[in-house]
């Protein structure tokens, strides 16, 4: 997992980078807010970020707002890291769009646990997104079946969206997954089957 570290203090940046690498994360570092923001809005954006509150150019909460403004194909888990520890700061950071918050100097175990929480959250969000995509795809097919489709009044064939005429059974099966078995309704039995049987087997009392 790649993690973006946005931190202008070189000591904290070096320490954080070393600790994250030790835990198996791939680290991308930057020293300025605007640079951090463009990393997160870029095509190869890391899925996790640890951002310092105060950075030259753009501060952490501002970056959170920018990132949340633009819909992402996959969500980014953002942890704000700062020496500001007042409860009003925590509320401001979370309301700006941060997922979590940790104060400096950071406690290693707390940071490790929060990163794991972040990974779990991202995994759950991904599974949820996959399931929604699957449901949307199914719903799309059901909608096609519910829509208006042209049917020949004589042979009852249906014209599909590729302009082919097919049996209504095939069409419905393709668009809904329903299967057909065959039977004869009482009216058709009286009208078609019974006269044929009487003709073939006149001795039978039908």
């Amino acid at each position, binding site marked *: 997992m790649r993690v973006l570290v946005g931190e202008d203090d070189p*000591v904290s940046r070096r320490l954080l980078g070393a600790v994250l690498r030790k835990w198996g994360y791939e680290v991308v570092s930057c020293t300025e807010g605007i640079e951090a923001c463009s990393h997160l809005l870029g095509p190869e954006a890391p899925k996790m970020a640890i951002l310092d509150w105060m950075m030259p150019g753009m501060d952490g909460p501002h970056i959170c707002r920018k990132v949340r403004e633009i819909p992402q194909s996959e969500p980014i888990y953002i942890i704000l890291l700062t020496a500001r520890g007042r409860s009003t700061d925590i509320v401001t950071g979370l309301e700006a769009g941060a997922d979590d918050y940790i104060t400096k100097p950071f406690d*290693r175990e707390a940071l490790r646990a929060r990163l794991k929480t972040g990974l779990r959250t991202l995994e759950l969000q991904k599974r949820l997104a996959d399931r929604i995509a699957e449901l949307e795809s199914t719903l799309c097919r059901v909608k096609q079946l519910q829509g208006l489709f042209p049917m020949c009044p004589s042979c009852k064939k249906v014209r599909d969206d590729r302009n082919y005429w097919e049996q209504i059974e095939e069409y419905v099966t393709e668009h809904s997954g329903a299967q057909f078995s065959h039977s004869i309704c009482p009216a058709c039995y009286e009208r078609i089957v019974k006269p044929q049987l009487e003709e073939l087997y006149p001795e039978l009392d039908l």
Partner: protein
Amino acid sequence: MTTRIPGPESVLLGSCRRLCQTTDHGQEVEAARVFDQVAALMRVEGDIELLLEIVEVFLEDSPRLMARIRTALERQDLSLLEQAAHTLKGSVGNFCAPAAYAAASKLEKFGREGNVTGRQEAWNELQETMEQLRLALMSLRDERLA
């Protein structure tokens, strides 16, 4: 001839032993206020190489931050004062140096709230505690290199 490089445990133990050998409790407490070496080593899980690496970065970078704070005070630029003191506070916090941390926090607060009274004293205090911290960190580095 080979030189044995002490592992993290022996470095931690050595630091603890030195502290225990200190006879004057007051001096010991005062030293820990400047730079709590044991706590700093524990923060890096006994990784002395990593600690020395960030010590080098700090010794190189902290004069720049101090110069920014001085410029902010001279220009009475409160925003710059808050930002520079905040960054220094975060940097110092990695070394478990409560005296310098408190002095930087005080100047950050001056920047945020715009108070004038006591600003010079706070700056003097920061200079003094930062000098003590730098000396303690240089001593750690030199001890290691010796």
